[in-house]
């Protein structure tokens, strides 16, 4: 399967600061999905991006799919303590490989 790499592995921000995590692939992806896992919880689907250059928003979260469909990003504006957790990207295909995730810690 197509491996995806996520950076950074960890991010610690003050509440109100912005946060971005990146997902990169060496090969073209058919689609990319993003999941959030709260501490002690299970991954929960956030969104799927399919089209080249696609941008989708969910309140303070903005998701982008690169023009070449080899990278994606998740940006959170003005983080809140409820944003704490690990964010994973995932490619499609039978192998369904996840990135290793970015753990976000938000300090009040």
């Amino acid at each position: 399967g197509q491996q995806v790499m996520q950076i950074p592995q960890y991010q610690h921000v003050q509440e109100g600061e912005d946060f971005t995590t990146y997902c990169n692939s060496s090969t073209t992806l058919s689609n990319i999905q993003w999941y959030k896992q709260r501490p002690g919880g299970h991954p929960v689907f956030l969104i799927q991006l399919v089209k080249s250059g696609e941008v989708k928003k969910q309140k303070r979260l903005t998701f982008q799919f690169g023009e070449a469909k080899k990278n994606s990003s998740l940006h959170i504006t003005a983080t809140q303590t409820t944003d704490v957790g690990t964010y994973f990207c995932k490619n499609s295909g039978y192998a369904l490989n996840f990135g290793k995730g970015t753990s976000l810690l938000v300090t009040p």
Partner: protein
Amino acid sequence: NAGVTQTPKFRVLKTGQSMTLLCAQDMNHEYMYWYRQDPGMGLRLIHYSVGEGTTAKGEVPDGYNVSRLKKQNFLLGLESAAPSQTSVYFCASTPDRLNTGELFFGEGSRLTVL
């Protein structure tokens, strides 16, 4: 709908013991997966199934076996548990034939091997 249910939620084993984790989904999904999650390693695919009676190996299949005798159930077995298998195990399912749909996860099973 219960969604994806995993049993047991917690288990402690001694090295060499065997056990089976059960994943049940009531959404009539074709595809089911078993992942393990370890600190800093993300989610790693152990085995998966694209339909009743079929199974395939994922990224880290050694030491595990699986069965999909019924569409709604996907069992993960450890024949001889090792401390390296201490982990949180997640089951997931998706209905999408093209495998591009949302994954639905169970709440996880935390396994400790002493």
